[in-house]
């Protein structure tokens, strides 16, 4: 795929939209003939290549951003803004959108988690247009009730089947409808100024063609040195993130808005690029710098056991990494529901040690805030076990009395229905020592 990909070398930056290719093509690549004809990379080769690209570009984040700005400014197509935080981004939006219509958003993690709550506060009406695309959705199957059972799609012959769906020339004049589009980009090329998207429905393409004001939100770590690297990153977002896209596949009525019914405006179409940092630069010199390797594919959410039950899902696009980043940005507290199972790290295509970083963030947080009595009481189960064994079997009997369970519910905070193990009358190590002593 990478070999066959042609970057259209034009002077003005373009928007390149990628999509999973047709089912026929995927079937062809899955067939014996298809496999023979293409020199396909293994999943681990793709991961290795991607990590190499991410590590290199993390080192050159500032340089890439400067070059990207310079490239864009050469063409005069865009108004370029720098937004160090969401407040300044909202200020930019307010200054440039007075009296204009509603905002259409894409499903970008950056837009939905880091910007949308501020849009709401500032009084902007926003909709995720993706959810207006469910016209033919089978209402009998509203969503996958048990999506953890989905087959490993990225193992199933979709590796080389992400294609360039559209290459949009932004320099063409056109009339836009009276609404604003705010689109978080998947990658941007510093060298060409091209902006890359991965599209699942057709909402991004429609917005770029129809909105009268477009804001491309480029978070600083998404700027890569060149088009090829950006292309690999976008395809990888699809390869590793497709399952997570499917996980969220259900209609949301509250997000539906008929943008097509809005009238065309006479005002000149405006295109803005906002380079959005929101604490990313500050992470570079911390133990959390690996978060800047993230491509926002949300593969880490795929096997997370708590993902489908976490209440934050309603407010934020869920992934363990997203919640960690939000904590580091000071938006939420530590992710207390993490089971530290390690599944997210295994899924991450660039190998971010998410469980380790979640622990680090939690420790940093409680070092400043102080730990709760429950945390202190439960952090040394060995001490509790020693006491329990010493008083066994009395301890086993006592801890099953309903009144005692109620007291334990109050302190240290053990649920009265939770299963408790029974203390042994003699520890294994004591038994072993006696056995050894007696020969």
């Amino acid at each position, binding site marked *: 795929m990478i070999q066959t990909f042609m970057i259209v070398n034009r002077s003005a930056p373009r928007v390149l939209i990628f999509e999973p290719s047709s089912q026929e093509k995927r079937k062809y690549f899955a067939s014996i003939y298809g496999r023979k004809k293409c020199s396909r990379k293994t999943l681990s080769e793709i991961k290795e290549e991607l990590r190499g690209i991410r590590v290199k570009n993390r080192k050159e984040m500032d340089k890439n951003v400067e070059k990207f700005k310079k490239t864009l400014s050469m063409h005069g197509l865009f108004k370029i803004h720098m937004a160090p935080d969401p407040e300044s981004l909202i200020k930019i939006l307010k200054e440039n959108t007075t009296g204009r219509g509603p905002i259409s958003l894409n499903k970008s993690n950056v837009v939905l988690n880091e910007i949308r709550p501020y849009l709401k506060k500032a009084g902007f009406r926003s909709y995720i247009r993706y959810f207006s695309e469910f016209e033919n959705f089978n209402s009998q199957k509203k969503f996958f009730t048990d999506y953890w059972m989905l087959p490993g799609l990225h193992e199933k012959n979709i590796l080389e089947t992400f294609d360039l769906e559209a290459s949009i020339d932004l320099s063409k004049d056109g009339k836009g409808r009276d609404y604003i589009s705010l689109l978080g980009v998947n990658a941007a090329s510093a060298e060409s100024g091209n902006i890359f998207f991965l599209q699942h429905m057709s909402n991004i393409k429609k917005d770029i063609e129809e909105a009268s004001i477009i804001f491309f939100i480029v978070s600083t770590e998404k700027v890569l040195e060149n088009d090829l690297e950006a292309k690999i990153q976008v395809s990888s977002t699809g390869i590793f993130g497709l399952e997570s896209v499917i996980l969220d596949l259900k209609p949301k009525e509250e997000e539906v808005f008929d943008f097509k019914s809005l009238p065309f405006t006479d005002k000149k179409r405006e295109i803005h690029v906002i380079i959005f940092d929101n604490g990313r630069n500050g992470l570079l010199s911390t133990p959390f710098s690996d978060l800047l390797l993230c491509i926002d594919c949300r593969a880490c959410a795929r096997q997370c056991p708590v993902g489908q039950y976490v209440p934050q899902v309603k407010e934020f696009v869920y992934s363990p990494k997203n919640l960690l980043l939000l904590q580091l940005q000071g938006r939420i507290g530590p992710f207390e529901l993490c089971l530290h199972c390690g599944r997210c790290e295994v899924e991450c295509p660039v190998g971010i040690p998410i469980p380790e970083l979640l622990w680090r963030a939690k420790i940093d947080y409680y070092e400043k805030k102080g730990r709760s009595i429950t945390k202190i009481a439960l*952090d040394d*189960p060995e001490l509790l076990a020693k006491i329990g064994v010493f008083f066994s079997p009395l301890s086993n009997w006592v801890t099953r009395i309903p009144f005692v369970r109620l007291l334990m519910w109050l302190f240290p905070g053990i649920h009265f229905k939770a299963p408790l193990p029974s203390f*042994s009358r003699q520890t294994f190590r004591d038994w072993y020592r006696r056995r050894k002593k007696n020969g």
Partner: protein
Amino acid sequence: MDKVVYFTGCFSNYYDPEISKAFLWVMEKNGIDVIVPDQACCGMPMMANANLKGAKKNFQKIVRSLFEASEKIYPIVTTCPSCNIMLKNEGKAFFPSEEANYISERVFDSSQFIMYLDSQKRLNKDFGRIEIRVLYHNPCHLKVQNMEDTLKLLKMIPGIHVLGINRDCCGMAGSFGMKRGNYSFSYLIGSKVWRMVEELKVDAVVTECGGCGLQISSKNKIRIYHPMVLLKMAYSATPSGVH
């Protein structure tokens, strides 16, 4: 190799010593001496409760103790998946040392070690027959290390029928599922494996993790076996079998 260093973990030391005794027994059946050095909790519960100092103290203590006991020769074996991953990956990321790296490279899970013995043609396969239908629950801390040696081990024992494999989390995660605020989450996550146990109508569940076993048996009241306990039973059984 005629010795191994055994890290018991808290569960099999304080709650279910039969696991450790079975491991000792299995090793003796294979002509291997077991060294049980001084040890403490691996530190994972402390890390989970944001007690870095406590975890450091425990981790450094056990790493030193295991390092000395192994005499740079003997492998280190655990019967608890969480202790295993703490010794292999998590601990050294926070408390790096030469000893921690050494332990990390030489630590085995008990089933993994049995299969290692088998690969070296050193495993005593004098198993009797155990007629039992089981579900194997692969604990997260082994799954993420891509370890399914227990399945291979179960296949070697005559009479054991593995009717299903659960690779999803049970929701217990140490003391997580016991906490007042987490119980309902833990219950929701656990419901899948409970359903599986009911549907498959198995006699028992095999899992390496004490916490997973506690969670699974809490609703189904099903018998839980650590693979080492089953292996001990297999060595004790006659060729015609026991049930």
